[in-house]
């Protein structure tokens, strides 16, 4: 220390001090409030002059301030107004010469946004050198930019969901497509539980297309899709995997009866004629099915191949029927349009 710090040859009027530091407090040595900058006066009200710092503020650092020394020893002051809404401040205390007491300069810190809202402050309440306004500007800019980013992310998320749904949907019938079927089959194969896979093929579909046109063909596909959908439970998957080919996956099936019931229901619904612009479209459906028993390990394409073989057995046996492929490759007829084992069991 060179001890050469001389007193500055100037003093400040209260007005000049208020302009320089609108958020200052002047305390006497017993920590009573003797004066304040215009912004602090606005926050505290004029009645605080003469009151102890402790009675106007609740102090956090230091805990108590009954004499000026406590304030001067603290590196940084932290305090809150006792009056609602309890606006917080940080600050610094410096000694005044003679027995002038202490000068505190306060700021809102991060709470500036709340303080400005709660007390209706304006730019002129801050010293022009105070970065409070810049902080508020940045806060608003951030909110505005985040809003734009969030809206953009929402739009992209919506587009992604739509694109994903389109990627697994057959546009004509609204059923799942081959990709949806393969994904569902993979999930079932990975699970322990038993399930049934049905492979369906429309008979005479080509003739409808050739004689009545593609619009009639499309109408038939849409109608068949609706009838298949109506023949299974909500959680079962119905997919259109080719021109006139469908696959149905029935989850949680452990024996033949649900398969028989669904097959009979489909045959029953398909016995109702499909009419396009007054012309009946003669259509039948042949079906092959396979069961994956609980805990059985089998590849998806092997299941498909067996269901396929059963489907051709149905076609060979006169169409409009359901055939089951057994594990050993043999085929067992389950139900047909001619037999009477329909619907309600």
């Amino acid at each position: 220390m060179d001890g050469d710090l001389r007193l500055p040859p100037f003093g400040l009027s209260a007005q000049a001090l208020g302009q320089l530091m609108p958020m200052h407090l002047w305390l006497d040595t017993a920590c009573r409030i003797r004066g304040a900058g215009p912004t602090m006066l606005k926050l505290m009200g004029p009645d605080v002059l003469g009151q102890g710092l402790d009675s106007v503020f609740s102090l956090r650092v230091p805990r108590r301030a009954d004499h000026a020394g406590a304030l001067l020893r603290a590196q940084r002051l932290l305090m809150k107004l006792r009056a609602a809404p309890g606006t917080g401040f940080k600050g610094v205390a410096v000694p005044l010469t003679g027995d002038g007491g202490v000068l505190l300069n306060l700021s809102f810190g991060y709470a500036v946004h709340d303080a400005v809202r709660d007390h209706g402050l304006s730019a002129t309440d801050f010293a022009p050198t105070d970065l409070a306004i810049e902080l508020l500007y940045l806060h608003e800019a951030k909110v505005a930019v985040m809003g734009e980013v969030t809206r953009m992310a929402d739009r992209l998320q919506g587009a992604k969901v739509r694109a994903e749904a389109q990627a697994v949907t057959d546009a004509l019938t609204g059923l799942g497509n081959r990709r949806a079927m393969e994904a569902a089959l993979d999930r079932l194969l990975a699970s322990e539980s038993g399930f049934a896979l049905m492979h369906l093929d429309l008979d005479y579909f080509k003739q409808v297309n050739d004689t009545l046109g593609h619009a009639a063909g499309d109408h038939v596909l849409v109608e068949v899709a609706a009838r298949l959908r109506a023949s299974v439970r909500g959680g079962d998957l119905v997919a259109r995997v080719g021109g006139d080919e469908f696959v149905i996956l029935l989850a949680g099936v452990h024996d033949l009866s649900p398969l028989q019931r669904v097959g009979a229901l489909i045959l029953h619904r398909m016995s109702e004629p499909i009419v396009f612009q007054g012309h009946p479209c003669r259509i039948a459906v042949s079906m092959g099915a396979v069961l994956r028993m609980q805990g059985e390990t089998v590849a998806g394409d092997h299941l498909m191949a067996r269901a396929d073989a059963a489907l051709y057995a149905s076609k060979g046996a006169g169409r409009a029927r359901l055939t089951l492929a057994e594990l050993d490759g043999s085929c067992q007829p389950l139900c047909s349009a001619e037999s009477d084992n329909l619907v309600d069991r």
Partner: protein
Amino acid sequence: MHGLINKSLQAFLSDSFGSALWHEIAQRSGVAQAIGPDGFESMQTYDDSLTEALLLAAAVVLRRPRDSLLEDMGTYLISNERMEPLRRLLRFGGVSFTDFLYSLDDLQGRGRLAVPDLALPEFTLDERGMGRFTLVCRGGISGFAQVMVGILRALADDYGALAVLDHSDSAAEGEERISIEVHDPAFHAGRRFDLSAEAR
């Protein structure tokens, strides 16, 4: 050109002239073909030629000179309800219209603080005394100063000041000038500005 600027242009055209005309302008300019029918995203950067093509098509479709469209866009940015966040951000620049004019030197930097790649033109304010100023605008698309004329007119109104503005091309390449005369900084009460957006 940053998406925020392009999207503002889109919002101005679509809000002022209807979405049918906006779609026609987007088609004619090739913007719809380049980026899709929904138009610009705010947080992306687009090639400057898209903005130029859009302005060209808008002038043809709306049968309006490009300069007057740009000035109207400036007015729209301050006075339309949808652009309230922008009006507020600009009002942070100063407590009075004259004080705001002084803050224009910082506009580029302020813009960059909010959005680092916004790339606004550079503004320099020259004070000529007696409430007379010259604002020099460098960089950005040609005609940006016209947008600024609209913004300043609307903001003078917003502050309650009476100001006369005039745009002129500068002798220097890529530089435009706006002369500003502030006659009465407190001409009328203006619109209220609370530092806190939630205050009322």
